[in-house]
């Protein structure tokens, strides 16, 4: 009984995540499924969505900078 309820729950979580992922693709956010899951979990735990978006962008920019640096170093 309880196992079937758990199974239900898991499947619905899965579905929700699928939908969100699809939306994210539609909106072209370029988040992979894992990152999206992490983000959704954070939001559910009360993080401000706009701040989180800022974080993601910040990290992306940081990454770009790092990659450029590496390229320069490699050269």
């Amino acid at each position: 009984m309880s196992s079937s309820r758990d199974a239900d729950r898991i499947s619905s979580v899965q579905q929700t995540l699928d939908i969100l992922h699809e939306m994210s693709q539609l909106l072209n956010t370029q988040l992979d499924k894992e990152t999206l899951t992490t983000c959704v979990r954070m939001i559910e735990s009360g993080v401000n969505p706009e701040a989180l978006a800022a974080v993601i962008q910040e990290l992306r920019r940081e990454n770009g900078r790092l990659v450029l640096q590496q390229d320069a170093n490699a050269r």
Partner: protein
Amino acid sequence: MAQALEALVTALVPASRDGHALRSDLVAHCEDILNSHIGGHNEPDLGHLSDLIKRQLLQSSPTGAASLKFTNLLSRLLDQPVLLRKQASIHFLQSLAGSPSQPGVGFLPVLGPPPPPRTSPSPSPVEPPVSRLPKGKSRADILRDYRLKNGRPHLPENLLLRDTLYLLQGISGKYVRFSAQDDSETENKLLFVEDSKHVISSPTKALILRLAEVGHLYTRVEAFVREREEASGVGMIEQSLCHHLQAQLTEYYRLIAILESQMSASSNGTRDGSLEGRSLREEETGLTLRRLDVWITEWRLRMRMMSVCVEGARGAQGGALVNLIHSYTDNGDPFVRKFTDQLLEEVSKPFFATLHKWLFSGELYDPFSEFFVAMDPTLAHMQSLHPSSLAGGIAPPSGDGGFGGFADVDDISVEREGGLKLWEAKYQFQEDMLPMFVGEAFGNKIFSTGKSLNFIRYSCHDSDWVVTREKMSNTGGTLKYSDIAGLERSIDTAYQIASQRLFEVFIDKFKLLDHLRALKNYLLLGYGDFADQLMEALNGSLTRPANALYRHNLTATLETAIRSSNAQNDPPDVLRRLDARMLEYSHGEIGWDVFILEYKVEPPIDTVLDPDSMVKYLKLFKHLWQMKRIEGTLSVGWMRIVGGARTFLRVPELEPQWHQIRIVMAEMIHFIRQMQAYCQLEVIECSWKVLLDFLNKKEGDMDAMIEAHRSYLDRMVKKVLLLSPKSGKQESVLNLVTEVFSTILMFREATDNFYNYCLSESARRDGQLDAERGVYTGTEPAHDPDTLPRLIQQVKDYSGVFSERAQTIVHQLQAHPDLDCRFLGIRLSFSDFYRRKT
């Protein structure tokens, strides 16, 4: 939390997987961001959010498929029970998607470059657009190359663009310019400067011509604004029109500036970019003639409207100008309607300011005479003149110094003209200046309201009330064009309040009713006892020639009559105004002809009781007074012939004559009594009742009051004087009646003579009898045998004339168009006494 962040960092920055320091740095940084206030304040609701997203999606893929899909997904997500903060998640996605700014939009958001016609389903705005693969030459390119080879290529568009931008500002460019004609009357023409190296294709020419129209209109509007700025004495409405136009032009300048910077940006790009890059950029961001055309389209309409207004403004002024603009609001095109509404709102501001002042304080502030109420400048000074004259008139209630002496008659008459003239002519209604959205009925109401307030303020010296009213009305909001219903409401209230107040002032403060009543009682002989007393007291002096009369005697007699009758109970303010006067007399006239009673009025009462009405009152008084006189004479005569003749006139052979005289005199008494009853009961009292009803109702404005009084008076004049509406015969009955009056007087004289004769005759007979008895009583008076037949003949003549005229009068009255007069005819000949003898 930190764990999750770390996971994020490692997922997004692969380099941090190795460097621990970098990772912890980033995590700390991210925590900083999360703890900051970004986005902390607002949380848009779901509907708004999804709208935003859909709009975004529509922008990137105009087919709408993506947004449809999103709607689908959203509804499915909402069905899911798991997440608590779905909205926040969506917000997160949205802010992540919306954050990368789309390239090329710049400051012209609406006309961004069309989405690149690529086939990939999810265009990525983050990445710079992938440069297009070089293709084979298009036909246009081939054509251009061909032209280049021929040596006459098309003029490059960016050069033309620059010129066109100049044209939009009314400046001639290098390749395209306005024909040099300074006078604005002739149509400005556009000239294309063709040089040998380049050609301008005709479609481009057409396009430029279209664009140049805006420039042409712009020069016209701008010239108008400039001209008005310099000119002096420009009306306020025109000023505000200019202001509005200027604001519009500023807007226009802004647009041009933006376009210009856009153009220069694109031309910079062309300079350092490769050919391919240039064409691409131009396609994406640059300004072309066609884009310019799209940008300008709205302005073309606006400019057209503005130039039309400008054209109209040359001929019209003030309210007429507002009318002109208002006539454009009835337009099916919502854009035009909106524009004109806006314009009208702006332009009508000074009008409404004036209206407000006029409607609530009765002041006309209109330095450029644009309002639909115009002041007569010659009467403007009356405002300052009035208080002094009024103060002089009212201040000394004890003496009649204010009225005394004929020296200031001229002065008085000048002032007397004041009231009504002031009311009627100080302000004039100008129909062509009345804005159409107000409507004529309301215009009249506004006019009357302001006039009433002004009148209350300056002629009735009740400015305190007006000021308080004004203050009260200020709280009720302002008048403006967009709120016509409110405007009408406030006009209605203001009108009612002002009229009500005017009535109150007139009836309570200035005792209009008392004055009217006094006029009726004294001048129309409503006080019978007073009239009798006056008649008796004056009888002796009035039979004397007019030049033997003195005014002070008359006034003293008047005083006596007042004291000895009920009139003494009237308020002193009323009695003070009553005065006896003589008209201008000519030789041979006696006191009866020139004596009149007068009632003095002063501003502001003279607005209602204007000099014209006073003249009518005098006319009525004269007629009624004469009637009274005849009545008095007849009653004295009747006493004599009935009492005296029976007791001591013993001339038996003359008895039949006396009998005849009594019959005729009874007929005359009947005539005059009926006449009087008709005047007093059927005419004066009935009219009075109508007037009283009106005054008690307290409806309508000053004009209505004046009108009511005037009709009251006219009705009385018409009926008392038995005037007939037929032209040329208006006074025929009246003339007959006056003739009858004089016949009665002559008859009375003849009977007096006859009476005297009989008296002396009976005395002679007494003497004879005495002599027969041997008593000598005196010398025998000379006896003239001719006298008796002559006297009898006179009496007979007059009685014949009287019955003849009375009969004519009755017959004329029976055919009189006025019903009341016809009824008088019936009264006079109630027993068919005056039936036409055949």
